[in-house]
């Protein structure tokens, strides 16, 4: 029973007014999202922001309290079965069967996807090869490293050739090398035209992988856009200058009136809007004899961005 909407060819996920509460605690509040087919969309936010809850709702695990959701053109409420046939989910916690070997895990997924026997074997062999698990194929995940288990987990998700994949914090807890491998695997999937919704706590990860990012805080989207758009909105980049005495700080604060001074620490915090050019400008205005004891450069990280956008959001709320 198909209930395809008109824009189904272009839109993979459409969410309006999504809301979920547990008792008094609202965990997802008025969330709107549109994810295009073939796009990588990242939900970025700290623990408890509602990322996982959104993934659990969109992947049919829990019902929303309110809101309209279509996934690959199917209404999530009416056609959950059809949605399940098109999605693949790799959750935060490993969903591999620890008593079965890597290969048996993949074949089990193939059976549950109702693939014909020959297809099952071919697909499993292909995924083991691609995810560098050929040597570990006949061992149980008990002997795997964290990165290997995560790769097997994603390979299991891919057995049924999903068109939309949910990756809930795919690199949390992985070492840097495993993280790089995982990023490459995700890029390869995108190249095949798969749509991906990933959640992450890491700005860099969203920046590296996502076409578009939505930042979540307390269940609300506080900022959304391409990585470049978001970065432009981040006022977190600054130089921090520490001076030898109060007099030097006074003098510098007069020269650099846009800076924020801290009299106890004897520091001046100057916004960095244009990188090296800003730095050169700041140093020129200070002059040669300024008693600068220390200079540090701060680039925006998730904390800066996050505090910036949540700060803006609360101002908007008050107005």
């Amino acid at each position, binding site marked *: 029973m198909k209930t395809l909407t008109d824009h189904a060819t272009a839109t993979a996920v459409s969410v309006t007014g999504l809301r979920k509460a547990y008792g008094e605690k609202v965990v997802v509040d008025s969330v709107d999202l549109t994810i295009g087919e073939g796009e990588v969309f990242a939900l970025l936010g700290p623990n408890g922001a509602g990322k996982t809850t959104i993934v659990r709702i969109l992947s049919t695990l829990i019902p929303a309290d309110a809101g309209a959701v279509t996934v690959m053109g199917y209404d999530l409420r009416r056609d959950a079965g059809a949605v399940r046939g098109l999605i693949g989910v790799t*959750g935060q916690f490993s*969903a591999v069967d620890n*008593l079965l070997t890597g290969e048996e895990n993949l074949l089990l997924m193939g059976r549950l996807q*109702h693939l014909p026997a020959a297809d099952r074997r071919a697909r499993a062999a292909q995924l083991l090869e691609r995810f560098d698990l050929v040597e570990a194929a006949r061992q*149980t995940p008990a002997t795997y490293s964290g990165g290997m288990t995560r790769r097997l987990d994603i390979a*299991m998700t891919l057995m049924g050739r999903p068109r939309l994949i949910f990756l809930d914090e795919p690199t949390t807890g992985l070492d840097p090398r495993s993280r790089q491998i995982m990023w490459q695997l995700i890029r390869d999937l995108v190249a095949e035209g798969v749509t991906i919704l990933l959640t992450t706590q890491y700005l860099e990860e969203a920046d590296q992988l996502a076409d578009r990012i939505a930042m979540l805080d307390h269940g609300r989207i506080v900022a959304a856009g391409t990585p470049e758009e978001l970065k432009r909105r981040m006022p977190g980049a600054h130089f921090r200058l520490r001076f030898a005495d109060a007099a030097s700080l006074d003098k510098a604060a007069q020269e650099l009136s846009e800076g924020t001074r801290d009299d106890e620490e004897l520091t001046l915090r100057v916004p960095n809007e244009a990188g090296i050019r800003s730095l050169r400008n700041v140093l020129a205005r200070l002059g040669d004899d300024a008693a600068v004891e220390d200079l540090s450069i701060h680039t925006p990280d998730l904390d800066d961005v996050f505090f910036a956008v949540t700060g803006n959001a609360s101002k908007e709320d008050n107005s």
Partner: protein
Amino acid sequence: MSALTFAAKDSATMLGREIKHSIRLLRLLIVSAIVVPVVMLLLFDYILGGTIGHGLGDAARGAPYIDFLVPGILIMAVAGSCGPTAINVTMDMTGGFVDRIRTMAVSRGALLAGHVGGSVLRMLVATAAVTGVALLLGFRPKASVADWVAVVGIIAAFSYALAWLSAAIGLVTRSVAAANGLTLPVSFLLPFLSSTFVPTASMPAGVRWFAANQPFTLVVDSLRALLSGAPVGNTAYLALVWCAAIALVSYLWAQASFRRGTRLT
């Protein structure tokens, strides 16, 4: 393919998975479902059997104590599989596996069907193995072919009931230790508070009423009558009614817990 064919196929897949699990956990399963009942058989028959056998009087119908004891040991073999079944279900529920299955187009009941089917198979294999050991140790049943068919039927019904009960327990517990702990009364306490080792008539008054009427006693008494070639009377029907009731309540409990699991975070 129709929804029904898919449901059957998915259940068969999950059953295959449980059989593989059982093979991987074989040593553990042999201990809980075969070694423990056999040790109980040896302890009670060789160490305590002399005295108990003398005290049995009419209950033994002139046969040695081992013939009285074995039917009870058989239900211990069934009950010994409760722990592993609950643990397997808990592991699936607390790990990410059940969530993975729920996001796939897999028929809803397949996972539990696989667990229960696997559990029943383990219980039947354990009972057959314990029967074999008992025969080697001197157990001499006087059952006819029809009696044996009835024995297998009652053990199968009892296994099915306890498998659903174990699955339900596994669904409501949040850790492997809790799953194991909650099945202990079923696998250990209830056999002692039944006619497994001694007739319930010899028990203190407070316990006697419970022991005489609880399902384990009715199952043991039916098996004992059938295996000794004595008339069974209504006991076998009562035992089957108990099995059906336990299976039905446990099934509903398990299904409700499984659905509720979907609504939790």
